[in-house]
């Protein structure tokens, strides 16, 4: 269609191959600054992000496929990767329930201290992970304020896998709360009133009216919390105990491999994790799109 337009409006061009490019570059625009700002954006992105990631992929690709598989399947690496993904999954499930609860309470109820509680949710975002790590290790340690009773009950938290889950729940919690809270806030109170006036119990109205609307946000929060937890290092480092095969997470193994100058091994584990987290985030985007399309189509 644009070709037909061009044929009627423009004189036949002598060098048609350059014309599209010329049109992009010299198309009159009202606002100035596209080329310098876009150029700088791509350049800076390339130098700071793309070239370093390229180096990782380049380094990992110096190994053959069988070598890559043997690095991942090596007993210690496999244990660390399973632990990182497994503990993150458990923490993300915990956060899905606890985070949705906190989001619900913050969005729905008015009570003294609400804005303090609301601010506290962001603390894991803001607190340096090494500070979070030593604080959690102290609190949940065998002689800590909370950890002591757990240890006496025969279920020590610090230096076990449970401790790793606690630290990952700490870092992942804000992702669920901050994703779900705005959606609950924007829920139409009229729908619930309609449900209750039609005879629905409070639980029924939650299950049939509210839950379907906030499920996509909960799923997104779950995935964001999971993705963040898989790569977490600082807050886990102190509380984990770091025993190979038992409480050694994958990011720590990368550090260990670097200290032994095993760059290729570190690159393979790093590329595996990077690949996994990109897949998680892409599937979140696809899922969100699918859900909104379905909701939009179904409700209108």
């Amino acid at each position, binding site marked *: 269609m644009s070709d037909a337009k061009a044929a009627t409006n423009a004189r036949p061009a002598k060098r048609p191959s350059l014309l599209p490019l010329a049109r992009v570059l010299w198309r009159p625009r009202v*606002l100035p600054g596209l080329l310098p700002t*876009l150029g700088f954006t791509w350049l800076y992105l390339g130098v700071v992000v793309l070239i370093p990631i390229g180096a990782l992929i*380049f380094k990992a690709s110096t190994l053959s496929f069988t070598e890559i598989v043997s690095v991942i399947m090596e007993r210690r690496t496999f244990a660390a990767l399973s632990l990182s993904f497994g503990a993150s999954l458990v923490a993300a499930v915990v956060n899905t329930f606890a985070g949705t*609860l906190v989001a619900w*309470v913050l969005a729905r*109820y008015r009570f003294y201290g609400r804005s303090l509680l609301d601010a506290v949710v962001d603390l894991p975002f*803001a607190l*340096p992970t090494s*500070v979070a790590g030593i604080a959690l290790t102290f609190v949940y340690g065998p002689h800590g304020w909370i950890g002591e009773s757990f240890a006496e009950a025969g279920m020590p938290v610090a230096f076990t896998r449970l401790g790793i889950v606690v630290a990952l729940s700490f870092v992942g919690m804000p992702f669920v709360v901050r994703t779900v809270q705005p959606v609950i806030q924007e829920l139409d109170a009229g729908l619930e009133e309609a449900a209750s006036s039609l005879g629905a119990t409070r639980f029924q109205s939650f299950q049939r009216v509210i839950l379907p609307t906030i499920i996509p946000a909960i799923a997104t929060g779950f995935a964001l919390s999971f993705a963040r937890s898989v790569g977490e290092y600082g807050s886990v480092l102190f509380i984990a105990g770091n025993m190979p095969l038992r409480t050694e997470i994958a990011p720590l193994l990368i550090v260990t491999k670097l200290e032994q100058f095993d*760059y290729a091994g570190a690159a393979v584990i790093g590329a595996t994790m990077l690949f996994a987290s990109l897949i998680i985030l892409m599937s979140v985007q696809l899922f969100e799109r699918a859900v909104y399309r379905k909701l939009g189509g179904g409700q209108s």
Partner: protein
Amino acid sequence: MSAGPNVLPGKKPQGVAWLLLGLAVLVLLVLVLVPLIAVFSMAFAKGIDPFLAAISHPDAITAAKLSLITTAIAVPINTVFGVTAAWAITKFEFRGKSLLISLIDVPFSVSPVIAGLLFVLLFGSRGVVGPFLMEHDLQVIYATPGIVLATIFITFPFVARELIPLMQAQGSEEELAAVTLGADGLQTFWRITLPNIKWGIVYGVVVCTARAMGEFGAVSVVSGHIRGLTNTLPLHVEILYNEYDQVGAFSVATLLTLVSLIALIVKKIIERRDLAQSP
């Protein structure tokens, strides 16, 4: 309506609401608030003198200096990038825009350890350009440039992510009017755009600064842990803790905790301001 939990405006507080509220408070208490209190309580466990000694120790001061230098480089450069990227993305249509937006988000989804690993693989002794750097006696990894680079990578998206939705919501009508009336690009930016987005920039800068001061994983990988040379405050906390100097570690940790608390307060103030302004 004021004190009790209230499900819908005008409805009486219900028993189950109190239960949910109690559970939510418990979750935040054991997971976030108690560890926060523990930091301050441990720092002053033996009185004020050990605390003062720990934060005025020469190693702590060197670490604080390096943290401040790193932040002073990373935050301005990422702020300039954030404003530039937001201008290009929100004021123009071009090919590859959604790809560009996705790529800007990548550092968010990269593990801090992997961020550090990227720069070791590039500049380390066995890295891609490592041999070249060695020949010319340039030190990037295990030195300040590596720490700065890793911090820039980690804090890369913060300002851009804050400004893109803000400038998209504001549209370009005011800028178009200014240009039509004869203003040039820079005049339009300084007089029209900047006043509109200044609180968004402040917000982005605050989050960026808190993260730059507190980054641990990425900096830990590229630092080489040379005490008094390539030590930032979060790394200093780790070193003191591993030397069983709990009071020292928690004392330095209070400084970092204060930075993040100030960031949270500024963030709250800006959010309140936005709420008050929107009709």
